[in-house]
């Protein structure tokens, strides 16, 4: 028996009224795999992450996490829409970093990182603080732990956000255009942290990105989204080196043209 995929999208669709954002998506991500999602805006790539984080409901299909349905639960042999308790049990395996950081502005960097471990995981404050201190040290911000988000640069805020997500010990990390809101000179420090996490932790990572260079160097697989579907996917060398699909070629050409 082959190993369970970490995440499996099974014929998942998402519509907003008449607009179909995702159309019958099928995608499997293996344990420890690092997958980048690229594509033009409006192609539904961010929606994939948001559905997996349960920030969006889905209209059709089932999302599976480690062999268990996330959006549904087993009841009498059939799948019914999941209740909140079920969703929260599965959701505990997933962490997310947002484009706009979404740090809690009324809490220091340290408080941001220990809030959920204490309230959700029920950790002791001292343990949560020790763990948060390690993580803040790893993202290079141990000196800023008592600063409020408004006192930090964008790059520093995003690194705190990464530490905050890791503090919940997720198995899957989602990165939603995490460098898009940053000034160009701050992008590097955030990507550096993501590289390091990829090396040191056995995490499954799914990221939506516009950083083609980073996607190429970092990921095991790249998926190109177009109009709510995966248009082409494969190892970065192949997809960037010799794209088979005309749409992919056009997109990559346009992106490289822009520098």
């Amino acid at each position, binding site marked *: 028996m082959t190993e369970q995929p970490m995440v499996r999208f099974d014929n998942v669709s998402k519509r907003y009224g008449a607009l179909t954002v995702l159309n019958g998506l099928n995608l499997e991500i293996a344990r420890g795999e690092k997958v980048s999602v690229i594509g033009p805006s409006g192609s539904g790539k961010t929606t994939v992450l948001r559905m997996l*984080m*349960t*920030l969006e409901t889905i209209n059709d299909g089932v999302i599976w996490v480690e062999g268990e349905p996330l959006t549904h639960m087993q009841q009498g042999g059939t799948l019914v829409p999941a209740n*909140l308790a079920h969703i*929260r049990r599965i*959701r*505990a395996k*997933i*962490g*997310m970093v*947002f484009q*706009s950081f*979404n*740090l*809690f*502005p*009324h*809490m*220091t960097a340290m408080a941001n990182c220990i*809030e*959920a471990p204490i*309230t*959700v995981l029920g950790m002791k404050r001292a343990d949560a603080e020790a763990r948060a201190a390690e993580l803040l040290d790893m993202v290079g911000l141990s000196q800023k732990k008592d*600063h*409020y*988000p*408004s*006192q*930090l640069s964008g790059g520093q805020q995003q690194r705190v956000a990464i530490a*905050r*997500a890791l503090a*919940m010990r997720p198995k899957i990390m*989602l990165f939603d255009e995490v460098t898009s809101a940053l000034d160009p000179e701050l992008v590097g420090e955030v990507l550096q942290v993501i590289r390091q996490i990829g090396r040191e932790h056995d995490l499954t990572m799914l990221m939506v990105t516009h950083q083609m260079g980073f996607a190429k160097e970092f990921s095991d697989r790249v998926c190109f989204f177009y109009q709510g579907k995966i248009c082409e996917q494969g190892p970065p060398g192949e997809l960037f080196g010799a794209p088979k699909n005309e749409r992919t070629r056009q997109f990559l050409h346009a992106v490289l043209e822009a520098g």
Partner: protein
Amino acid sequence: MGIRTLVAMLFVSLAVIAVLATQATYRLFLPGLLQGAVLTMEIAILGSLLAVIMGVLAALARMYGPAPLRWLATVYVEIFRGTSALVQLFWLFFVLPQFGVTLDAFLVAVLALGLNVGAYGSECVRGAIQSVARGQWEAGTALNMSRAQMLRRIILPQAFIAMIPPWGNLFIELLKSTALVSLITLSDLAFKAQQMNQNTFKTIPIFTLVLLMYLAMSLTVSIGMRLLEKRASLGLARGKAA
């Protein structure tokens, strides 16, 4: 208006009261009016407390409560916003006893004013909660917090700051509304003023003092709320200069 101007106005109004008090025509009325002012403050403070409790409860019930609770809160808010404060006061004072519930006038005053302002307050609590960025809820979800945890730890602390200025205005409205209780036999500041006016016909000295006293109380509330706002937003604003 800046906090300095408010403090200056408070200082000037208190100084004018003090100067007027040196004159016999004014001094005569001062003890009685101060007595009334104490009752006014008592009603204002207890009424504000009730208003805050009702405002928060009604807002939470309307936004997150189960359907029956939601309807109940909506009916409460609509009735107390839709009818006049004086009508509510008179209803509790004159009509409720006909249903066999006779409340003490002081209790009626606190209840009517607190419920009235609480209904307006629920709207500003709701507005403040909705003003918190959606990303904050999303971050809470990504950290697997429950809705109650997000509300209590993430959303309400941020909404609190946005609520301070509108609540400041509501507290002042409530303070001013306390004058209505003079019409249900309570001897507050407005009652004392009218009583003295009827007995002595010294309208100008009496009402000058009374207006100055209300002004001083309102300004104190304004200044207090400004200071609270400053303090509460300390963590949020600190980095803005940097």
